[in-house]
């Protein structure tokens, strides 16, 4: 690790950058664009976000608040739980514990630093965590392993049985840093009685763990507030997603990132609700005018990303798609599985229902919701099993009228790389051109963005899509 990197706490560093970035929007446009000249690398993320107007500003505030919460947690008497993107933080907020979501922090670093999070990625390997492990965790984990992050109090994850590579990162950290650890573990099926019961029992174990580690008892009223807010968020998302199925798609492409990042940061918190409301207004206005959300205003093609987006470096992927008139109708991260979601018509049992009647019903809600988080829902069993990745992706492609499917992940994703080839072949049989990207969403050293873009271009050209 470079000596200068060792001088900074990762949480404080990201917080400072985002906090400062948030302030740049307070001046005039002239001042803002003059300022961009002085941040030649960061402008690649700042400019597009700010261009999204009020939602962009709210997004910056949201991220700043999230990072500030981490930095100030101990001073505020709160505990920090290291966790993963597919773990709903709602339960942590309900118990006054601050989530430190590795992939979210890795994403922020990958997006905004010219050299990405290379030092942290590599530091993991220096202490023996395998280089073949997923970069989505390593991109920030290295900082915590090196003592360059806030002191973590406990570790919780929910990826065992879904993505063992992910879960292993947290188990490794627990052993390496000697921190208390709890894993939610998922069976390879979704809706059977025994699995529903498993989800519930496992979640009770989680709550007992959180109570023990935080010293906070679960508070029924507080949990109800969080779930009520979640219900509001789900309803707004339903509105937005229904409009996303329109042709042209009226949703600005960067909202995809705002939707899932916001949910990973602040599920069940009112600041996320406010941002969603702003976004719904914009999407509604575009829909009323039958206008595409793309900057060009012209939608040439509709793409479904069946896995994750590309975050290294800046917002290059979305810029590229936007420039080519390609709408992104979502990815595995941006979908939520409330039983009322537009894409669950015909398979409502695959979704969760928010029930705030009493503590038992609320815990059950959280357990079933967590079991339907991105990846947790659809990557646990064989990809062609009921409710799993293929059925799920195909359903999304149909509901959102996607013209093609794109896979992007990380080389560390043993889980999807183990099946993506037959998955893509099956998708092609359904008439959907499917492209497998070979880069790393978090590490541009694996494949430069230029090379990635060239290959994307080639796919769309060769398949006659553009």
């Amino acid at each position, binding site marked *: 690790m470079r000596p200068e990197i060792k001088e900074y706490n990762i949480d404080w560093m990201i917080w400072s950058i985002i906090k400062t970035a948030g302030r740049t929007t307070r001046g005039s446009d002239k001042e803002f664009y003059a300022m961009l000249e002085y941040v030649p690398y960061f402008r690649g993320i700042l400019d597009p976000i700010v261009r999204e107007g009020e939602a962009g500003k709210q997004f910056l505030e949201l991220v700043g608040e999230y990072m500030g919460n981490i930095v100030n947690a101990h001073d505020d008497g709160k505990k920090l739980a290291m966790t993963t993107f597919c773990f709903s933080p709602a339960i942590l907020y309900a118990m006054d514990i601050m989530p430190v979501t590795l992939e979210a922090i890795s994403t922020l670093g990958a997006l905004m630093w010219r050299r990405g999070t290379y030092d942290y990625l590599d530091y993991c390997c220096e202490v023996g965590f*395998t280089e073949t492990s997923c970069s989505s965790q390593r991109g920030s984990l290295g900082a915590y392993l090196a003592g360059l992050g806030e002191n973590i109090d406990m570790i919780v994850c929910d990826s065992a049985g879904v993505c*063992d590579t992910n879960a292993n990162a947290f188990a490794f950290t*627990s052993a390496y840093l000697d921190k208390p650890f709890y*894993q939610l*573990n998922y*069976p390879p099926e979704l809706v059977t009685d025994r699995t529903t019961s498993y989800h519930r029992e496992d979640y009770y*174990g989680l709550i007992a763990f959180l109570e023990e580690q935080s010293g906070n008892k679960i508070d029924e009223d507080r949990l109800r507030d969080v779930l009520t807010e979640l219900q509001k968020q789900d309803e707004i998302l339903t509105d937005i997603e229904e409009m996303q199925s329109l042709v042209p798609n009226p949703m600005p492409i960067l909202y995809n990132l705002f939707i899932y990042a916001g949910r990973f940061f602040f599920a069940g918190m009112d600041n996320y609700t406010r941002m969603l409301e702003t976004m719904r207004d914009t999407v509604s206005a575009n829909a009323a005018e039958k206008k595409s959300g793309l900057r060009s205003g012209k939608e040439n093609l509709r793409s479904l990303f069946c896995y994750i987006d590309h975050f290294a470096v800046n917002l290059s992927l979305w810029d590229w798609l936007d420039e080519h008139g390609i709408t992104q109708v979502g990815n595995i991260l941006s979908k939520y599985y409330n039983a009322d979601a537009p894409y669950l018509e015909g398979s409502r049992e695959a979704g969760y229902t928010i029930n705030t009647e009493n503590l038992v019903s609320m815990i059950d809600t959280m357990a079933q919701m967590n079991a339907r988080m991105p990846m947790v829902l659809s990557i646990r069993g064989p990809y062609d099993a009921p409710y799993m990745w293929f059925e799920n992706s195909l359903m999304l492609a149909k509901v959102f009228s996607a013209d093609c499917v794109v896979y992007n992940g990380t080389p560390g994703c*043993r889980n999807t790389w183990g*099946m993506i080839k037959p998955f893509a072949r099956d998708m092609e049989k359904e008439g959907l051109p499917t492209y497998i990207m070979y880069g790393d969403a978090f590490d541009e050293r694996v494949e430069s963005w230029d090379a990635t873009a060239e290959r994307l271009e080639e796919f769309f050209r060769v398949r006659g899509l553009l």
Partner: protein
Amino acid sequence: MKHATTAGPIQRAEESVQNWKQNGGRVVGYTCSFLPVEVLSAANVLPARLRGTGVSQADIGDTYFGPYICSYPKCILQRAGSGQFSYLDGVIIIPGCDSMRRLDECWRKAGEDFQGIVPDFFFHFGVPHKAADHSMAWFSSEIERLIRSLEEHFGVSIGEDDLRKAITLYNKGREMIARLNNFRKASVNTLSGEEAFALSVAGTLMPRDEYNQYLGEYMDEVSSRKPGLYNGKTRFMLVGSVSDDLQLISMAESLGGVVAAETLCFGQRHEGDLIGENEEPVSAMVRHYLDESLCPRMLGGYQARLKSLKEKIEEMEIDGVIFQNIRFCDLHGSENAIFERDLEAMGIPCVRIEREYGALADTGRLRMRLEAFMERMT
């Protein structure tokens, strides 16, 4: 009986599988040590652990699996696609890790291109990653589901008595393996690591009653050896990813060492402790296979595994530990690093190597690493 070559037990085991089949017996292949093989044995079906050895190319494996996948399931798929498992009456896929989990889809999808490679009985056997009460209950229901599927598919009946008999039969083998281990202790030292490991691998293939008899005869022969046969050699322990070939062990032993213990899922870690014979058989199997596992897929169990490792190191008077992982095996690869850190802090020399599955693809590099490790200890 002859045991001139240490590959003998494995060869013998492979012949036993062929004989079983030729005599009309059914064989079901399985992929991971979490399968309660007693269930198959109770159905009079031979459980044969799938091996990927002998593969010299990966065109089939690479067609279905992506590039960042462990070579073990790729080799199994290569063999399956080449028709080498056509004798199987069934396959049970166990999601031991992400790569092995996906052997399910890749094998079935390869079956669309290579006719006849997917047996009619193709079962995905879920195994939780923890041993809490509810996961034990779920695992119990999964064993019951397996029992029902076997009964239905093979037209057999698996009663409690059948399970008890199978448990007793397998326990007998476990007891013998534990006794076999005594020959590897420093005070006796009459059994090489290569022989011991070959016997362990043979146990994952051979019909158990035949195996028990074979092991007994083998031990009689070993008993007649002069104690201290391997005295003066550096005593290694081999730890880590799945391994069922003898070459890494034979290399370590050719350099003047003896592999006095190992914890590998094809080796004695697979056998573990005895299964309770005086309790309800499914519950007893659940506890044995889930609660007593030393596999890093049981996330959060590092301290228990470290304790077990230390006890083994002390019991077998180990001089140095060889940690190995197959590339892309993150579970073992990363845990090996913490083991190394903690054992080195206790003064126990360790070396960590990464390799490919199967016959050593980079013998020179591995030999050099082991030679350097030997030098460090002498």
